[in-house]
């Protein structure tokens, strides 16, 4: 069954197709929600809201404008950002001390396992302040431009650039100072 057929059936409110769509994209959506809101119950709520929004607005999806995955991604990210804004969890700090983060990470045992390395990368990013983390994720993981980030977060392009720069700097410092991660990246 093609994706377009599944979408059409979902528009027709066929439960089987809706489940199929959910099953296909649930991991993708949950990952986005967990990325922006690492708290599990919050990620679950956001995933639920995202899927309901997807099902309700499927008729607005235009295959000629872009891929379905991108469309879903945009909805999920928008939901997450909306939540962060609503809960006032987006704090854009001007300075961020990397010493504390480094000290915390130094306690962890080194590992060559790639999965563990991925987990450490996520941990490093999750440990960033919310402003840094959100801008970093939008830019580096989800491919948003600074103009788009500015529009989404209600900040100027310059602030977006600055936040990204500082986030990268903090991460770089932590990567260099934590041997397991350096090892994982080099390996």
């Amino acid at each position: 069954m093609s994706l377009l057929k599944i979408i059409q059936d979902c528009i027709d409110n066929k439960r089987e197709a809706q489940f199929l769509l959910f099953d296909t994209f649930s991991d993708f959506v949950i990952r986005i929600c967990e990325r922006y809101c690492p708290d599990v119950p919050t990620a679950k709520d956001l995933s639920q809201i995202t899927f309901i929004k997807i099902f309700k607005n499927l008729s607005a999806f235009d295959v000629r404008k872009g891929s379905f995955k991108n469309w879903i991604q945009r909805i999920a990210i928008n939901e997450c950002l909306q939540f962060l804004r609503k809960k006032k969890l987006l704090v854009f700090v001007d300075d961020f001390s990397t010493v504390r983060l480094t000290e915390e990470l130094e306690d962890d045992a080194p590992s060559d396992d790639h999965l563990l390395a991925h987990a450490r990368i996520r941990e490093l990013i999750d440990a960033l302040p919310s402003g840094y983390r959100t801008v970093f994720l939008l830019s580096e993981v989800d491919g948003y431009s600074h103009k788009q980030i500015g529009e989404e977060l209600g900040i100027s392009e310059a602030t977006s650039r600055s936040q990204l720069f500082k986030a990268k700097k903090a991460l770089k410092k932590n990567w260099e100072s934590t041997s397991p991660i350096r090892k994982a990246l080099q390996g």
Partner: protein
Amino acid sequence: MKKESNQNRIRDAYDNQPVSLDKAELWQAIESELPPEEKERKFLLWWFAGAALLGIALLLIFLPGPTQEAVQPPSSAFAQKPAQEPLSSPSDAPVENALTKEAKTEAAKDVVFSEASTDSKENRTALSTPPPQTPDANPSTASSSSGQNQQAVIAMEDQTTAPSQKPKAPLLTSNEVADKQDKNTVPPRTAIGLSPAIQFKNPGLLPTTSPEEQAIPTVSLPDWPPKTQTPKWQMSLSAGYLSSRRQYNSGNATVRNLKEQNETELPGWGMNYLVQYRILPKLSIGLGLEYQQLRERIDWEGVTDVRQTAVESDSASFFIYQSVRVFHPGTLSRTETDYTRLRDYNDIHRLSLPIELQFDLWQRGKWGIGLQAGGKINLINWASGRFVTADDEVLDVQRSKQLFRKRGGHALYGGLRLAYRLGQQWGISWQGQYERQLSDVYREGDFGYRYGLWAQRLGVNWRF
């Protein structure tokens, strides 16, 4: 390079992130907030369509065919001259000459009195049947009474008094009755145009002067002018050419620099089967099935101004995005580049249930004018189409193979009909209608004019 590698590693870190949520639980939560499946509604719709078809089929089977007597002109000589000489028509002469006075008296004894009914058909049958126990009657009486010109028969009014208790009154001919009435200045008991029922059912209201007079036989006459029996139920099958002009309601479309042709033509053809019930003499309501096939053509000119240019130096990517977005109010939207003129074809198939009120405004001879108004419930809509350039180059082959099946398209309509009768059951009509879309197969609020030349075959009777 190193930057790209790090970026990929970070993306991989998130792409390979294990999902910690319980998906089954999440699906249950989502499902509880989704609207319930519409299976029942679909079933209801199909049941409704099926019931309508069954009803039409049953009506076709059980309704009687065309009733010739309803439009048959009166052929009897008596009926042709009712007003001039109602009581001394030539048909009375043989009766008068043939019967002797004794025979009339004897016959009067044996006449079986029958209550005249309001039903003219029943009345005619009763009147045309010779009296059952008249062995002495002259055969010419029977033959004359059963003849077409002998529809007036002699009857007696008093049904309650036994013949033995009443004085034997001579059976008089109509001329004698008239003479007697003139002499006694008694108002005539029969009048042209009054139904026999009134004459017989209200004898007491008429002034009576003597028992002899009470015994004066009256002559019952058929109704004139004959009542036309217009059928209550009627069916019609129509097919014809359609030409619609529709104007789009573009709504809040933010299309700039695109000269949109808001009006379009939709030529096509259609079939319509309607079962009608006459509520009032000139007003009937109908329910039926209608199929339409229309071809729509829309011309677009110009380009939209949806241009987006982005320069990304930070991520070392540089791209210019430029597009022309062609907006179609309803069925599609499309992104293309560098086309300034486009032509959009749509083939539309519709199956709908029309519910229609018809009012016969005017009729003269074979011509008739009527008003009609109603609503359409669209059961099924199919639309397929393609984009072509001004040079008929097909741009979107994929779309030409794609069928758009959409719900909606319900409409209200009203208009004028000019009809001409070709025969007993055949006719042609020109119909002009205004139609307004109520739901969004195209776009809510679209409206248009439809002109149709229809050939009609009527199942029961042609009304004009």
